[in-house]
């Protein structure tokens, strides 16, 4: 089952793409997902980032489903 992960700013540079379909198991938490992402892109481990699920900032306990839109957000720079 596929989940769409969006990368922004410096994280898109590291992944080399703006979004990517990941195949995940049901019942995955944001914390679990972050571990998988850092395994694939170890360079993201040095970066601060937040995770948004369906356009809301989510903590590690939030569950994601294949319907979720997940985004990796580096520090904000608006203003």
């Amino acid at each position, binding site marked *: 089952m596929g989940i769409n992960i969006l990368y922004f700013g410096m994280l898109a540079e590291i992944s080399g793409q703006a979004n990517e379909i990941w195949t995940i198991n049901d019942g995955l938490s944001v914390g679990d997902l972050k571990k998988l992402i850092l395994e694939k892109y170890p360079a993201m481990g040095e970066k601060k980032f937040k995770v948004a699920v369906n356009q809301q900032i989510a903590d590690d306990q939030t569950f994601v489903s294949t319907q979720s839109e997940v985004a990796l957000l580096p520090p904000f*720079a608006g203003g």
Partner: protein
Amino acid sequence: MEGPISPQFVADSIAKHQSKVNIGAHAIFLGQIRADEKEDGFVTGIEYSAYEEMAEQAFHAIREDAFSKFDLTCMHIYHSLGLVPTGEVSLFVFVSSAHRRAAFEASEYIVDEIKTKVPIFGKELVGPAGAYVWKENN
């Protein structure tokens, strides 16, 4: 909006409010790009990108929140996307109220909220050779 926010755009916004005769005070905030010095030279501009759908939602939430907190007549927020060169304006927050106190307080509050809650990202372009650093609000 794409690219810098022009002084003329600000003027047009002000002019549109002159028919609202219950307004006594406008507070306008403009964020302008500084030529800060970095390791590889001076900043020449910022390239902004955003998680656009979430940014729209965040702006909407800030707007609702500010209207509930402060006694405002009008509120407009504009942020640039794409390249904004040094010396040009990337953020325009325009609040209007019958009395000045609400306008001042809302203006500062809204700018603080934008800096911390809206997923906008900025690449500071540095020097002539294509170097850059990612901007980070604190």
